[in-house]
């Protein structure tokens, strides 16, 4: 694996007596696409929120490019170069599509930029995700897939080195899911951005990621190449259930 860009050690989050994330450790290599999967409530989004600064870890460390960033505020994390999307899209309805992204392009770069540069960055990010952004096009015209793209564009406009893509692709049909998977791969290839991709549908993800981690009840139960993870008996038991054969077939086809 290439040099680690993100190192997480014994990361733990407790809400009262409930342990949402229990001593999870992992690293992400430069330029990697890491898949993070698990059933609903397994702690995926909690891990994301801790890395992105929205939640303060109860224990454990998060190191990004060698710097300990646990407990930093979200805007500081953003400025350091970690972009994120939200599982449920959170557009700003008062702003147009382009303005939504321009906010990120102006404030999210971690350095002072001119207005013109911010608008250009926003337009580029929208072009990257393939979202039209004519004058004052309203976000209310976007469907589920469009809103996901907007989330992604907003994260890209902050010029991240690491992208946390919370892409529980609910509400998308199969071709839209494939498009989303292709887009993440293209973002990595063309922009050189390292990606952690959270997902709970395994099939689409397996085609694109380099490595997969599986969470269950806040614990890491399996980690490795997609093909190996899909055949791990523990994963099959807690997660894949009945459609294991299908996923294994898709991984086989891809590998």
């Amino acid at each position: 694996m290439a040099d680690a860009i993100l190192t997480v050690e014994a990361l733990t989050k407790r809400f009262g007596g409930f342990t949402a994330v229990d001593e999870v450790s992992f690293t992400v290599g430069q330029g990697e696409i890491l898949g993070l999967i698990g059933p609903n409530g397994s702690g995926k989004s909690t891990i994301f929120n801790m890395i992105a600064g929205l939640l303060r870890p109860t224990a454990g460390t998060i190191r990004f490019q060698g710097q300990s960033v646990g407990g930093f505020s979200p805007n500081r994390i953003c400025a350091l170069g970690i972009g994120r999307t939200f599982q449920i899209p959170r557009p700003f309805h008062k702003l147009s599509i382009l303005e939504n992204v321009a906010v990120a392009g102006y404030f999210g770069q971690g350095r002072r930029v001119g207005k013109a540069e911010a608008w250009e960055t926003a337009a580029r990010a929208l072009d990257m995700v393939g979202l039209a952004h004519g004058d004052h096009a309203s976000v209310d015209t976007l469907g589920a897939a469009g809103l996901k793209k907007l989330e992604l564009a907003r994260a890209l406009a902050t010029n991240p080195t690491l992208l946390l893509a919370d892409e529980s692709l609910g509400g998308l049909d199969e071709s839209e899911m494939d498009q989303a998977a292709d887009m993440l791969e293209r973002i990595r290839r063309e922009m050189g951005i390292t990606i952690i991709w959270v997902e709970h549908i395994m099939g689409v993800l397996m085609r694109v990621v380099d490595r997969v981690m599986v969470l269950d009840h806040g614990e890491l139960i399996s980690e490795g190449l997609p093909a190996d993870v899909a055949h791990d008996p523990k994963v099959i038991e807690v997660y894949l259930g009945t459609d294991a054969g299908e996923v294994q077939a898709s991984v086989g086809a891809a590998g």
Partner: protein
Amino acid sequence: MTAIPQDTPVRRLERRHVAAAIVAIALVSVPILKTQSEWFAYPMHIMVLIMIWSLAYTSWSLMGRFGLVSLGHGAFMGIGAYVTALLWNYAGLTPWLGIPIALATVALVAFIVGYPCFRFRIVGHYFALVTLALSEIVRQVIMATRDYTGGSLGFTPTPHGDGFSLYALQFSDRAVFYYIAFVAWVFGLWVWRRVDRSMDRYALDAISEDEDASAAAGVRVTREKLKITILSAVLTGLAGILYMQYQQFISPDTVSGIAISLQIVFAVVAGGIYVMLGPTVGAVITILLAESLRVAIGTTMVGLDTTIYGLLLVLFIIFLPKGVLGGILEWWRNRAAAGRERADRA
């Protein structure tokens, strides 16, 4: 596609620029008319009041338009007015120095109230309540220190010179103050426009909808809110100072307290909270209403204007939430859009 959206409206404004120039010339010539006929003295006085209050209302709307509803702006007016006047009377400090000190005090108070609110996410109704408390605290402080401030009896700055003192900013000729108020009013509008065209405006709009998503996009939420709050408070303080220098009399009822804070909110809602001249229209409405009531009914029914404000506020919020000017502009735009559609079909 890299068109910057602000560019398009600017072109279309040519005709409006001409209209603005005509209005400006008309406004500037009022004191000249007054030298010809004393009949203009009263309208000119009303216009000074309208311009000073417009500054206060415009300042409030700087933050109000982003959902930061402050019921504490009466406090900022009061602090500005009282600090300047007290420094003049007791320390002999010219307003030229007193005003910066008063404005710095306003900024400090705005920071002390704003920072904990924004840091600990006190938003919406709770923010309104905290600021409401500020209104009352400032009024109570003025009452408690009545030996110096005169309490509810009010306070009069010591006269200086013979009716024209640049040193004390006291001018018995109202025309001088007319121009000062005019410049202050235009300055307020200019600040509004600068904010409107800044990237901070987009950040504040985003913050008003979703603080977490804004922070994830890199916006420094607490800092952005503090910036606009302090700007809004300082300009409101300036309006309080101008009111004091013009009227040469202040009392808690005229420049501070909850009643003034509510009046500010009402006027802006009535005029239009999201448009530049909305607060100005609000000032015209409220001041003409108060003056008509005073002339028609006299001073026998104290508080009648406030009662009517309250009633109108409810009606406005239900039937015309964008205010008079906001409503008119929307109707105008819809009509123009419908006209274009008809033309397209033809």
